[in-house]
């Protein structure tokens, strides 16, 4: 329990450091941190599936995109969500993301492994296809520019700093909510499904329902991140729902460490940091991104969060080797 408390304290301290330091940085860093936190919410929602249930989804961008497009369409066409009613947009984003996942889950949940990847890819492409071609609704290739700007309810969110605080609030709340979820009995049974699905089934758990509920929760938080993204980015394009967005979210989770929640946030910070920072320095920044993908997969199977564990494992094996040497020496 000691290490667990230590970890919680470390996360809280890092969050506080983030909250205190970022506002003193220049506007580039503030916006970068805001976007990274929005993607961190998406990556953490994916981690519920990937890290805690063992389902690798290639379509998490669908919920992100639906949340973002819905926010943009409601704001531009009906002026909805730009004043105090922004606070209604938050549950709407959660519900719509969750509802879409509830529909998609009917098709996807039965599949496992490669087939789950493929069906979530296909579902994500369905949403992308609509975003890309349904011109009258989504503006097609050009997307939708948020004409009304960011919400204004006493606090003016068009200031990047204020929007940073808001996004930070949602990021911290999501982290807390998902942490409570994975620590709950429901979260424990998800872990059981990840480890041994058959055993859970024999024990009498409704595996399908557990996976389905996890899928819906992941979709709901995906929708929430989409609502924030529309305002963070100011424009919603098919880029939001494209396959590479889903893949990016997967990489962020794996890079940070799947099954750790905060891993997704760390991965998001690194990917955004690399992409935005390196691209200002050199034109060939994509080599770095591609390299991070390949290196993570080859050398960091447990992600950055798993490095301490791997080191201590390595030390133990070294120790064991030494003790066996000593034991076999007299003969």
């Amino acid at each position, binding site marked *: 329990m000691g290490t667990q408390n230590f970890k919680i304290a470390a996360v809280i301290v890092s969050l506080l450091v983030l909250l205190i330091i970022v506002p003193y940085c220049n506007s580039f860093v503030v916006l970068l941190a805001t976007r990274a936190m929005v993607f961190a919410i998406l990556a953490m929602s994916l981690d519920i599936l990937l890290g805690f249930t063992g389902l*690798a989804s290639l379509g998490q961008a669908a919920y992100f995109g639906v949340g973002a497009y819905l926010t943009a369409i409601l704001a531009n066409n009906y002026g909805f969500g730009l004043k105090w009613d922004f606070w209604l947009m938050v549950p709407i984003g959660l519900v719509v993301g969750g509802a879409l996942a509830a529909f998609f889950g009917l098709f996807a949940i039965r599949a496992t492994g490669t087939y789950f990847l493929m069906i979530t890819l296909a579902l994500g492409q369905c949403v992308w296809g609509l975003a890309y071609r349904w011109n009258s609704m989504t503006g097609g290739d050009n997307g939708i520019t948020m004409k009304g700007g960011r919400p204004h309810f006493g606090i003016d969110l068009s200031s990047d700093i204020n929007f940073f605080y808001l996004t930070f609030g949602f990021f911290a709340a999501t982290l807390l909510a998902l942490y409570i979820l994975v620590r709950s009995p429901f979260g424990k049974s998800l872990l059981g499904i990840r480890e041994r699905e058959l055993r859970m089934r024999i024990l009498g758990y409704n595996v399908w329902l557990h996976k389905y509920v996890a899928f819906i929760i992941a979709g709901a938080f995906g929708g929430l991140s989409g609502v924030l993204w529309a305002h963070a980015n100011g424009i919603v394009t098919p880029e939001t729902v494209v396959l590479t967005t889903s893949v990016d979210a997967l990489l962020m989770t794996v890079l940070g460490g799947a099954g750790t929640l905060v891993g997704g946030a760390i991965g998001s910070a690194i990917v955004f940091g690399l992409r935005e920072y390196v691209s200002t320095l050199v034109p060939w920044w994509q080599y770095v991104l591609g390299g991070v993908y390949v290196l993570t997969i080859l050398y960091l199977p447990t992600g950055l969060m798993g490095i301490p564990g791997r080191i201590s494992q390595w030390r133990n094996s070294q120790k064991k080797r030494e003790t066996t040497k000593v034991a076999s020496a007299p003969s």
Partner: protein
Amino acid sequence: MGTQFWVVQAFNGVSYGALLFLVGAGLSLIFGVMRIVNLSHGSYFLLGGYVALSVIGTTGSWLLSLPIATLTIAVVGLIMERLFLRPEGRAKLVRDALIALGIALVIRLMIGPILPQLLPGQIGNIIQVALVVIAFAIPIFLLLQRISAVAIEADVLRQVLMTVGFAFLFQQAALDIWGGNNFDIQPPSALTQSLVIGGTYLPLYRLFMIVGALVIGIVLWLAMEKTRMGASVRATVDDAQMARGVGIDTNKISMLIFALGAGMAALGGVIGGAFLGVYPGLDFEMLPIAFAVVIIGGMGSLGGAAIGALLVGLADNFGKALFPELAYFTLYAPMVLILAIKPTGLFGRD
């Protein structure tokens, strides 16, 4: 919308399907033989088009560009498979050395913009660059030797992320070599004419695509069904472990199939370059369509890939003509339904 509309659309759909067969068949066989979900398959398509452009630019021969692009990308695929997807023995050392050199080069090039004061004078001196790179690469290489790399064979998620990483690397390489412009591949004038049948214009080039894909499909099918090699491939698709057990060199088979698949995708890129064009981003546009072909047909089946390609080609064309706003939806929704109802595809086996 008379009969002519339907005839033209069906013809376009079938010829697009012929192109998709070239891309999908390789992807399907690679999955069947190696159980690898390869997300850099779209990159082979794009790179094939680019290589062909260079060949046409230097020699002026379109016909020559077909085999050269196919072979070049087949070799690229082969190297990727040998060093990164299924490295064995010494290949692992080569891979680690390559990675170390790559990281060192990136570090050296990043020092330039970040800390220029560390590199007094002669920034472009090639010997200095080489020395710095080697100095960085050696400790990185030794470090990589200590961290044992994880095999990606058993884990589909790792395959996906690794091959996507390669797709990004290829995309950047293509951008650096060929720039960001849109190109078109001009086929020889003999193929740019049209046949007129009953008042309907049928472009000869699309006819050529259909015939070409048919010929390749039949040759592949004969090779798979009638030769010893083909029998080994089919055995490996069905049960790789058993195939190894009876003395089939599955290692060689997977090399062969990976090169073949990459080469066919590149050939598709050359042929498709005439009407799709060649441009950055085409790789990730083609990739999910290729997966739709493979999924609908069933992974690992040549006949399935043919049927899948035909269906996707027709669905894409009629979707765009009849329901322009739902065009891609009409393509991917059937993919979802087939996966939900019969996950192994129309012709796949478990």
